[in-house]
Structure formats: C-alpha cells, structure tokens
C-alpha cells in the first residue's frame, strides 16, 4: 500500500485512473488540462480526449489531430509506468521514490484517421520495467479497442528528481 496525498491507502491493483485523477490536479499537467483529457476509471490506465473543434487536424478530414492522439497516448503510457512503479515498490515493501520519467523514444503508427466529431480513448500497458527503463505500448480507439485508430510503442527512462528540485507534498512519479 502507498500513502496518497489525501491519506487514503491505495492498492497497486486499483485502477490507475482513480489515482491519476488526483495526481493530475496536484501536478497541474497543463497540456492534458488544456486539451480537456478525462480519466476513465473503468480501465487500468485510460484517458479520453473529448472531441473539440479547435483540436482538429486536417480540416478536410475533421477528426482530432494526430498530435492530440500522440499527447493522449504519451500521457496514458506515463500512467502505465506509474502504475508499474507503484506495483514494484509495493512488491519490494518500500516507499515510492519521488521522481519522474523521461521519454527516450516514442513511435506512433496511424492505422486509420479518427472519425470526424468523435472523442478518442487512449489506453496503455507497461510491458517491462527493468531497473531504470520502462517499455510500454499504447493504443487509441473511439468505441472498441478491436477497431484501433493508432498504436504506440515507447521506451521511457525512470528518473530521480534533479538535485535541488524539491517535490511538492504528495508528488508521485
């Protein structure tokens, strides 16, 4: 169990989306707030990008821009790593170290254009967490994961906070 800012103990197997709701508020992750991302609590690591006319890519196609889907999957891949880090800390019976993660590389394949006017859901899972490197994959869809819009594959480096930087109360990777 890890101690959350509000003092409620949480289990690692609890949906990350529930935890991240609080984390997002604590971090003020400006881009995800500016894009209107919403966490989904019925899946482990999932967020929805609501459709917005100001986030459309090619106006001739009318769907959310590829960059919005990239940002959505980058965010959910980060959630999946946080989820894995919590599980590892819990399994090792130690406190979660404050820190962050840095994307090393991120590949996004666009399988088909998103439908005009449709919200897009992004989900991710951590395939492997070694000492400092996490390998994750993510996928995006409107209605069903079996009909994907895009697929992501990425590697992240787990980082400790740089010297002199103080994590705020309740900060978690």
């Amino acid at each position, binding site marked *: 169990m890890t101690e959350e800012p509000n003092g409620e103990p949480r289990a690692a197997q609890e949906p990350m989306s529930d935890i991240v709701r609080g984390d997002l508020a604590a971090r003020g992750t400006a881009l995800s707030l500016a894009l209107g991302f919403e966490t989904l609590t019925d899946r482990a690591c999932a967020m929805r990008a609501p459709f917005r006319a100001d986030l459309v890519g090619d106006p001739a196609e009318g769907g959310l821009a590829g960059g*919005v889907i990239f940002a959505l999957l980058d965010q959910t891949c980060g959630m999946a790593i946080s989820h894995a880090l919590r599980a590892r800390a819990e399994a090792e019976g130690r406190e979660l170290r404050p820190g962050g993660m840095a994307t090393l590389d991120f590949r*996004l394949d666009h399988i088909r254009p998103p439908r005009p006017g449709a919200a897009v859901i992004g989900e991710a899972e951590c395939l492997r967490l070694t000492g400092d490197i996490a390998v994750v994959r993510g996928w995006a869809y409107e209605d069903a994961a079996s009909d994907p819009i895009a697929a992501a594959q990425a590697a992240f480096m787990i980082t400790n906070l740089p010297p002199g930087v103080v994590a705020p109360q309740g900060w978690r990777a």
Partner: protein
Amino acid sequence: MSEGARHPSAGPALLAAWPYARFLGVRLEAGEAGPIAVLPFDPKLIGNPILPALHGGVVASFLELAALARLDAEGRRARTIDITVDYLRPARPVAFYAEARILKLGRRAANVAVEAWQDDKASPVAALRGHFMILS
C-alpha cells in the same frame, strides 16, 4: 525563394488551416536553408511543472506539424502514416525551433526527418523520422 514556394493548388497554408496548429501557436519563419517552424512558449504546453518541461505530446505535435508544413510548402497534402520521436534533451519552457528535411518524396509516400532545438541548433532537443502518405 523557390525552396519555400507554394504550389498554386495547395490552398491555405497548413499551419493557418489546421485548428490544432493554431491551438499550439506553431508558425513558419524563413531560414537560411528553407522554412523553420517556430513554437513560442505558452504555459499550457507544460507537461512536467516540477522541472518544468514541455509535454512530450507537444514536442511530437510540433515536429509532426513541421514535417507536414514542409510537405505543404512543396504543394503536397499529406497524411501521417507513422512517426518516431527521439527525445534527446529536456524541452525547457522557452521557444522551440524545428527544421524539416524531405529525405524522399515519392508519388505515394514521403519520408521526412525533423530536428528541433531551443537555444542552440547544435544541441538538438528532439528528432523525428516519419512516413507520410501523399494525398494530392
């Protein structure tokens, strides 16, 4: 400058026509060897407020738009097939610049490489390689 000349049928410049490009605030400036994409800093672009650093999704979006704008400047309307973004250094909360190079422009697809920097062009912050389907 024939390098940046727009095809008569290309329509309005991509960065002005795409709502998401306007949302981010990406624009083009003339560089020595062709157009340079510029992303002025805005607090909404932050992904990590502790460092602080730009969001990885902003970095990728900016580089992808730089590639699409480069193809647009050649009069080609394109759709992204795949992109790979390498994150080389932390993207600090300052202006971001990107230069796109078309490595191959075929009839059906193009391969484009983008390098992006902040203060020092010799120390790139991120790089993109991608394939783009040529629509017209």
